[in-house]
């Protein structure tokens, strides 16, 4: 339902789809939409995510049918057809995906029939019929994976008991996505696993096609991706392990490693050796800067994944006091809210923080202003810097959207990411 949303975060369904396609090597989106949708959706995720744009095609290089009034009135399938024809000639890509804008969606252009014409000629052109207005970037992420599951991933790939697929981290919608996936890949590889991050290492449409070989789907997120995971298991027989949130620091990362090891029945001696090595690495550094940061009473404003990771690390591993956590994603289902809240409040050491679900910046600012307990550190998005300044609270930009920092492979996730996170807290003192 229409509502007031000050500072909306992210974009529509198309933004999430575009983010995923942009992160896969040599894959080309084709917009069947108005002339501005591509720039708008690029701006909403890639434009607010640490200034990184997808490398193969992005923004002005993405084919688009640029529908105008004529197409709105008479239908846009002819324009779409010539746009695909041109794209096949001009763009040196391995696969093409047609995205449906609000305009094409409302007037009911039959995108699937047009793509079928090209498929018959042997071209890899896939339709995605979910129009922009149906939801946000997060839904877009699920939607493109549903398309992969329904139309792209092969059923006849032999299983590989060492292969795992990583889900739940949305490229560009999470500003740290590439560094985060690289850290997860590094940790799991040291256990002897092969990792499909899909968006790093120049992974391509071939890796998507063959990902049904995986022994396990690992969903690193407390609430998204239920639908696609279920479909994946039904169609390809790969079970899922949901880890209820991103992890920063030794405690949660070790919990993650043990969870994966258990699900795959890995040799526990080897697993414990890896854990011991990694924990020693982290604490070997932490003990060299004791007292560099003074104790803080903190609040986090962010998506469920990041908020979980930061809150639990600071509370469980770094002796800071959690006060308030605001989840700014549109989590509507009660069971999702409960799962997220439980993970954030179920702390080994500290008193559990208050957890609120607010998407409107006005409400978020009011919650910080009206908090009775003192807050001395705030981790949030660029949009939250203002309230931190106003309330004279130390601030670190660590959640989407971030447009005042540049990120390549920086991450706050995992063993090594916790060190970077702690360094950045110091830099912001």
């Amino acid at each position, binding site marked *: *339902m*229409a*509502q*007031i*949303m*000050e*500072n*909306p975060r992210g*974009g*529509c369904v*198309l*933004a999430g789809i575009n983010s995923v396609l942009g992160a896969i090597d040599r894959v080309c989106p084709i*917009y069947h939409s*108005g*002339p*501005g949708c*591509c*720039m*708008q*959706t*690029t*701006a*909403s995720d890639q434009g607010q995510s640490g200034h990184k*744009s997808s*490398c*193969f*095609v992005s*923004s*002005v*290089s*993405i*084919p*688009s*049918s*640029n529908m*105008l009034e004529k197409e*709105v009135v008479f239908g846009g399938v002819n*324009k779409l057809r010539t*746009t695909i*024809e*041109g*794209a096949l*000639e*001009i*763009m*040196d*890509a391995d696969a093409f995906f047609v995205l449906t*804008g*609000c*305009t094409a969606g*409302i*007037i009911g252009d039959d995108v699937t029939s047009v793509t079928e014409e090209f498929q018959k000629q042997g071209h890899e052109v896939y339709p995605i019929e979910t129009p*922009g*207005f*149906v939801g946000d970037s997060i839904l877009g992420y699920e939607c493109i994976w549903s398309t992969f599951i329904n139309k792209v991933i092969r059923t006849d790939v032999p299983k590989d008991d060492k292969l795992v697929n990583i889900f739940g981290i949305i490229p560009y919608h999470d500003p740290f996505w590439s560094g985060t996936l690289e850290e997860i890949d590094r940790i799991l590889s040291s256990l002897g696993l092969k990792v499909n991050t899909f968006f790093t290492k120049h992974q391509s449409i071939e890796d998507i096609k063959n990902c049904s070989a995986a022994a396990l789907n690992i969903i690193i997120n407390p609430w998204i991706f239920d639908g696609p995971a279920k479909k994946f298991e039904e169609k390809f027989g790969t079970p899922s392990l949901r880890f209820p949130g991103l992890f920063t620091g030794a405690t949660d990362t070790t919990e993650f490693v043990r969870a994966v090891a258990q699900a795959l029945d890995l040799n526990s001696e080897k697993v414990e050796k890896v854990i011991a090595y990694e924990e020693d690495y982290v604490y070997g550094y932490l003990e060299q800067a004791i007292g560099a940061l003074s104790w803080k009473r903190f609040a986090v404003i962010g998506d469920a994944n990041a908020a979980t990771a930061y809150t639990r690390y600071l509370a469980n591993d770094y002796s800071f006091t959690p006060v308030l956590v605001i989840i700014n994603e549109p989590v509507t289902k009660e069971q999702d809210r409960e799962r997220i809240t439980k993970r954030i409040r179920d702390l080994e050491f500290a008193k559990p923080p208050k957890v609120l679900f607010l998407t409107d910046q*006005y409400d978020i600012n009011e919650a910080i202003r009206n908090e009775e307990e003192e807050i001395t550190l705030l981790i949030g998005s660029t*949009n939250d810097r*203002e309230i931190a300044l106003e309330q004279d609270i130390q601030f670190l930009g660590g959640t989407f*959207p971030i*447009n005042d920092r540049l990120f390549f492979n920086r991450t706050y996730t995992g063993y090594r990411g916790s060190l970077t996170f702690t360094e950045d807290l110091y830099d912001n003192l």
Partner: protein
Amino acid sequence: MGVNLDNSNVATRENRIGSITGYIGSLKDLAEQSECGTLKGCSRCFSQSSTCLSSCALGQLCGIRDVALIHHGPAGCSVAAAGSYYMSKVMPKKRGVTSSTVYVGTDMNENDTIFGSTETLRSVILEVNKRYSPKAIFVSSSCATGIIGEDIDSIVDEVRDEVGVPIVAVHCEGFKSRIWATGFDISDHAVLQSIVQPPREGVKTNKINFKNFFESARPEIIEIFKRFDLEPVFLYCNSTVEELSHLSESLATTCICGTLGNYLGNTLEEKYGVPYVRSINQCGIKGFEAWLREIGKVTGRSEKVEEYIAEQRAIYMPQIEEIKKELTGLTAVIGMGPGYTFEVSRVLDELGIKVVWALAWHYDKKYENGDVPPSMKYLLENNIDFEASVADQQNYEVMNILHKYKPDMYLSRHPGSTVWAIKNGTPAVYVADEYMIFGYKNTLEFAKTVLDAIRNRSFEENLAARTKLPYTDWWYKQNVDAFLEEAK
């Protein structure tokens, strides 16, 4: 031109002033065809992403201090909020003022596209008014609200008395025009319709309306204008609603970019008799001097203007002549909005740089008053010609041109465009700030920037050697106009 301020809709540039986005040929041909009225734009059977006019329209409006923008559409359309946040927090701070401008989306969803949501819009408007107490409210539509026929105008009319501040519907359906600059006209129209008042009786002023983007040269221009006893009023970035309400009282209107300013300038002239300064723009020496002289003429200050020009010439011309020696003979391709393409090509000519191809993101055959844009007239009269095309930021055409002509530099005012030139190994100058080539001092600085860019090509060359562009070899062998077709 016959502006109708009673209706919240403004006709597109295509329909109003015959603007086009598809043409390939030469500058001379383009100008001659527009003069004799035979110019017909082409369309493309293949295109790459363009830009939404709503970004231009709402991007302008959110620069106004202490107003509220309500974008009625799916959340994805409200992405301009990110830019708006910057405009209302950072830009005022730079100038030492404050703004509490807010940009909200209505987060329209599938149900709303079926059942409509005008009633919710009404409550959103009232809530926004209560929450933020804005000094004016702009209510924008989107493609989705446009197609399902949400009657934003009626809602706005109905709540007008209750909100008690200027409120206006802003029609931003993205499919309306392939020329995003139509968005500038839409924002002007909204301001003219809801905020600008007729001149107050007996008010005398030395103010001059100065339409620009981000007022980065504000202190410099205030200083210059002081000498002529003129006070610039910069629009819309950091404007107040009060300032805007008196635009009709100013001595004249001028702008940094003809595309940006021509709707406001012409309308103020037509409705309220405020003269609109029509000259080539302030880029480069010839442009700057022509512009100053025109202001002198319109406001009766020619003598003071001549004094200033003589003084500045003595300081800067020797330095510019010196650096020109190093620039002479270099080649350039440029891709910008028409308000800059044909101005910057003049400056490059002044600096001795040869333009081998100029792309304009669109082309206005005639401005609102029926004249061919002054920048074109100048190039024609001075016998400057080069290959030219009109393309709504079509990146594949730009890359084809860069690949074929291998110029020493590519200049663009759009960051997304320079990215691809750099990946191609072409040194690129992102002419981001609208004042980058303004007047004597900045023209000199610009010349130095160009020299820096072409002298050290380490990043461009190293990157290009290691990166693969997404275009096929086949495409590079085709003519640039391979996908153009006669407009139907």
